């Protein structure tokens, strides 16, 4: 793994200043292998701060694999090898000095199926801050729990039953609980892997509204099979196909006037 901190050329930096967004994460020539099988074939991508980036593409295209590289979730998969550079604020996340657990606090994750701990709503949120030593006393923890639940748009629904099990909530509420849990450790980036695929349209709308609000404070990368969702929630969209990143552009451009035939074929539902 190459460690590289100066990844922006002058022109790139100028272009970004013009667009009003700074780069939060960068992927350079990222290749991922599961044993002998290559899942990603050299991905270059810039993720801008306080923006939502949607990753779309057919099943097996590598979008979830790429998402999991961003906070080293692939470390836990045996036989998985990652090459290339992934940097967070210019720092290689696969660098020797980086602790994966600390990294995942900075780059949080929300999964496809809501997966609250079999604990109370309160403990679901306080668990992360506790192990990371973020809160020094009870009042502070109470505040973190409340703020996190507020940010996830769940506080009003659960404030009177914080001691009840998180698993007793509805699917949509559980997913927002998981988002609150991710938010509790003050991450900078939140990764979402199809966060609404198990939810009904109303719960989905709540999550989408939440994503839009969260963007003010966090950088969000979302993998979704629902293209309308990608179109609704993101500012940038990247299309993945057979382990390649085919096209990345403003979401509006991708869904009205994609450059690549493969993107066009995928989003309009045509045989490639």
């Amino acid at each position, binding site marked *: 793994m190459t460690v590289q901190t100066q990844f922006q050329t002058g022109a790139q930096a100028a272009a970004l200043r013009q667009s009003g967004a700074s780069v939060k994460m960068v992927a350079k020539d990222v290749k991922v292998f599961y044993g002998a099988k290559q899942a990603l074939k050299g991905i270059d991508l810039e993720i801008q701060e306080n923006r939502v980036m949607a990753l779309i593409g057919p099943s097996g295209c590598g979008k979830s694999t790429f998402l999991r590289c961003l906070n080293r979730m692939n470390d836990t998969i045996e036989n998985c090898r990652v090459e290339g550079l992934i940097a967070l604020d210019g720092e290689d996340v696969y660098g020797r000095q980086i602790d994966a657990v600390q990294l995942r606090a900075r780059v949080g994750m929300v999964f496809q199926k809501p997966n609250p701990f079999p604990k109370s709503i309160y403990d679901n949120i306080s668990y992360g801050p506790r192990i990371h030593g973020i809160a020094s006393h009870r009042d502070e923890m109470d505040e973190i729990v409340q703020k996190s639940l507020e940010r996830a748009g769940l506080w009003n629904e659960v404030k009177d039953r914080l001691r009840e099990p998180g698993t007793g909530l509805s699917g949509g509420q559980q997913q927002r609980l998981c988002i609150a849990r991710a938010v509790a450790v003050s991450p900078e980036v939140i990764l979402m892997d199809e966060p609404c695929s198990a939810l009904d349209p109303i719960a989905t709308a709540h999550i989408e509204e939440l994503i839009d609000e969260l963007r003010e404070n966090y950088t969000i990368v979302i993998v979704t099979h629902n293209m309308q969702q990608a179109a609704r929630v993101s500012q940038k969209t990247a299309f993945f196909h057979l382990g390649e990143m085919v096209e990345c552009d403003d979401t509006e451009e991708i869904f*009205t006037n*994609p450059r690549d035939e493969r993107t066009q074929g995928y989003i*309009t539902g*045509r045989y490639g």
Partner: protein
Amino acid sequence: MSPEHIVRSFAQELERLANLLTQMGGVAEAQVAGAVRAVTRRDVELAAQVMAADQRLDEYERAIEAETIRLLALRQPMAQDLREIVSALKVAADLERIGDYAANIAKRSLALAQVPVVPPASGIASMGRLVGTILKDVLDAYIERDVEKAVAAWKRDEELDDLHTGLFRELLAHMTADPLTITPCTHLLFMAKNLERIGDHATNIAETIHFVVVGSPLAMERPKGDGSSFAVMTPGSGPEARTLPRRPGNAA
């Protein structure tokens, strides 16, 4: 686009929409040709037919609107599909307006047929021929998704504007010289304006074709040749009307 939709019913619906537009374009073209012929041949029967047939264009527009809204709601189209569907709505509106102008020409031809022929009436034939060609090319370009053909037709609108300005001046001169021709000449003025507006709607369609195929608006500034808005004629100033120099910002 060569690859086919995975959902065949969606492809069939898009095809149906395209067919509706092709048919509507054909009717609009025939309406314009019929209206001009009614004027030049002083054919009141044909004029009545054109006026009655305008209803068909209204029906086509309603059908295309309904189909478009249904497709947007049920298919959530993206990219080229989205552009095609939205453009159908715009083109249908342009064709409907073209039909209205044709019907108005036909209607005025009835009044014109009741009075003696005035020489400038032949200008309507020339404008009609040109607008017919432009409209045909634009509609062919729409069916063939041919941007070059669309842009070429778009540029020819300047010639139409020139013809309009010329005819406008000629009519003013005629009316100044012989106030007894004011009735037919006024009808001819409106007819000429209608044909000029038909040309403008044809250029709208050409611009829409560019958007459908390329995905961005036509960036060129369209040459504007219509100087009729600046024409001034004073009694005794002779047969040639003066045309004020065009100023930037003045609408043609």
